[in-house]
């Protein structure tokens, strides 16, 4: 599937596979039915009933669901700099286990991915370490400092999948405007973390009744939506697209919907935790519930869900943010922001949204695969003859418990530890090769 210039991974030869008897569901290709899928040398060769296996390896998919594999547009691989928390190898293994065939890594590493040299070293490492294709976003501003633009042209030539200062907002409207203008030369998307930091200040959680009771400094929803409005206004003025990272507030969704209606080419993503949790959960003071932006009110959660349903929000993104155990084993206030998500995203959303009837399975599959791929101009995984095989085999009846010891990620700071989920990834095929099987 990979357009070779922006997704990088091991060069694994395509396999010969026959996936037998699964319900094949690809909302984009309008496929839904029980059938066999034959893959020749990594490419989907035939869909149909009782296909001849020839010498192909046969995988029994009876009672299972076969869907286009997932694409995660927002992962922190912590490389370079914090390889104790995640590496390209461990992060892509975790992604494979989560059903992903492609992920995008954020540039807020140490050093920051703000030069072709740093990006080049990642591209090279990915070719030997990445279990599934991975793309790398580069920074908008040098050192994420919000003053000078990076060499976006050179970075795009070196393979940048897009540009973002994620972790920080683009500091000033002036710089954001220049990024929108000059970013056009890169031909790659611009993604923004929307946070007015003079409002969020030292905020630890959503500002509301729960923060008032617990005593935490509040991070108000307007700190996000104000910056969403700024960036949408600039995108509209410049006539350039923009991708909004990890939305959390109703007002942000409303602003995005209005901008899209007005013709602004804006896209957005939302995380599983923002779709499943509210600030009420923070009464446990569990540092694995500390993230930026924070999970918010019931009303905000409902707005995010509605935005995901009606297509205002195109993508589910995990914002997988690994942290060392000792850094989260501290009082909530001292803990860093961020939770992992690659290995639990589908099951969490299936359990908390699809099973209770809040989101249709088809919509979830679309928003975890075609939606994010299209937002970043990546090839859309499809189940159709002639397409590279990017497939996930799911058991939507299997229940499992999220255990700290079972992660492929180097970090275990999951908000789901100890919880029981329904929906298990049985197999992932990425770029024509089996990358995970359980």
């Amino acid at each position, binding site marked *: 599937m990979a357009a070779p210039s922006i997704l990088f991974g091991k060069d694994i030869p395509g396999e010969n596979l026959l996936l037998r008897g699964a319900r094949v569901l690809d909302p984009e290709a309008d496929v839904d039915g029980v059938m066999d899928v034959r893959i020749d040398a990594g490419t989907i060769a035939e869909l149909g009933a009782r296909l001849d296996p020839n010498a192909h390896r046969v995988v029994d998919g009876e009672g299972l669901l076969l869907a286009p594999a997932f694409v995660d547009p927002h992962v922190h691989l912590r490389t370079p700099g914090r390889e104790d928390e995640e590496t390209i190898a461990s992060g892509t293994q975790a992604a494979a286990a989560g059903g992903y065939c492609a992920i995008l890594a954020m540039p807020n590493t140490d050093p920051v991915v703000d030069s072709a040299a740093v990006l080049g070293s990642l591209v090279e490492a990915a070719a030997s370490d990445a279990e599934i294709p991975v793309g790398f976003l580069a920074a908008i501003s040098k050192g994420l400092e919000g003053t000078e633009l990076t060499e976006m042209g050179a970075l795009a030539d070196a393979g940048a999948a897009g540009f973002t200062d994620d972790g920080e907002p683009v500091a000033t409207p002036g710089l954001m405007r220049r990024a929108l203008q000059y970013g056009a030369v890169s031909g790659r998307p611009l993604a923004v973390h929307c946070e007015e930091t003079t409002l969020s200040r030292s905020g630890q959680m959503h500002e*509301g009744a729960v923060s*008032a*009771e617990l005593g*935490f400094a509040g991070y108000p929803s307007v700190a996000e939506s104000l910056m969403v409005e700024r960036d949408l206004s600039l995108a509209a003025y410049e006539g350039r697209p923009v991708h909004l990272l990890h939305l959390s507030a109703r007002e942000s969704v409303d602003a995005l919907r209005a901008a899209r209606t007005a013709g602004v080419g804006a896209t957005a993503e939302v995380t599983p935790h923002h779709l499943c949790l509210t600030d009420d959960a923070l009464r446990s*003071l569990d540092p694995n519930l500390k993230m930026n932006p924070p999970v918010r009110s019931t009303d905000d959660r409902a707005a995010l869900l509605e935005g995901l349903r009606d297509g205002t929000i195109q993508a589910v993104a995990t914002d997988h943010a690994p942290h060392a155990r000792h850094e989260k*084993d501290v009082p*909530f206030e001292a803990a860093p922001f961020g939770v992992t998500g690659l290995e639990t995203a589908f099951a969490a959303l299936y359990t908390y949204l699809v099973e209770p009837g809040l989101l249709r399975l088809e919509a979830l599959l679309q928003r975890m695969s075609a939606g994010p791929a299209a937002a970043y101009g990546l090839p859309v995984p499809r189940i159709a003859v002639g397409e590279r095989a990017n497939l996930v085999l799911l058991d939507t009846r299997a229940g499992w418990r999220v255990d700290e010891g079972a992660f492929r990620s180097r970090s275990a700071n999951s908000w789901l530890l100890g919880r029981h989920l329904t929906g298990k990834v049985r197999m992932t095929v990425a770029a024509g090769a089996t990358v995970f099987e359980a």
Partner: protein
Amino acid sequence: MAEIRVMRDDLLPPPSLERRHLLSIADLTRADVERLLGTARNFSRSLEREMKKLPTLRGRLVVNVFFESSTRTSSSFELAAKRLSADTMSIKASGSAVDKGESLKDTALTLGAYDPDIIVIRHPQIGGAHLVAGVTGAHVVNAGDGKHQHPTQALLDLYTLQEEFGRLEGLHVAIVGDVLHSRVARSLVQALDIVGARTTLVGPPTLLPRGIEAMGCATSTEIATIAAADVVYVLRMQRERMLEGANYVPSLREYSERWGVTPERLRPGQKVMHPGPMNRGVEIDARVADATDALIETQVRAGLVTRMAVLYDLLTSGPVGVKAAALTEVA
């Protein structure tokens, strides 16, 4: 010598004791609160005797760990433990391994290795006491965790109110000042709600946290509203919060002009409380602090017996989820 003991069999600790802590007022039931106050009252009578020490917790170890400076809370816990004949050990953050960068978890594990019965902890961060409770076998008493909770302060305040008014139900308490940064206010609002008293929070709009009404209290930015209350509870105006251009209030001068508790703003005979330490002339006029209607010293005395009750309760029937135990003193 007086013995404090449980009278009825059904009030004895259940055979398999869950580990119990006092981390937050929110964990307590009304019965828990009433039992604790009853125990404190019994202890106050025992303290009127010439021989003030009770043998109740002999052989038990109470460790006090204070990561924040504190005079009254730490001294009152230490004395409470000593009055009950427990062994005590007090650790301050400065001069300890914390100075060498030890994590709270490791400090807790180290102290836990001595098998203390109770760890009393004050920590500048919300969730400090909860973390310690999660990693040690000891009963943990939260003596203040950041801006979150200070449950023994709220209990001693209830005790003070009960002694003064003879009831708690239906009392109206106005809490005045920097609610935003106050663990005392949060704990007290919950405690007053549990016992059926009413609370109005009064202060500058910037220091009344958005959404706080959901805790079951009213709010007002008008200092005049304090006149309607039975008691005016004055919070410390934390000077350190007013630094760094936070702009919560333009100046302490403006704060004390508008929200300082002065004799003119009180009804004659209206009772006044303050958790200390006071900033005289800022949040409280010196004439108010020194007036006979101020219950501030009573609060300090209440702190001792309330903390004795908490220590005793944790090692016997436990405050959380255990039904009320009426305690009777037997001569």
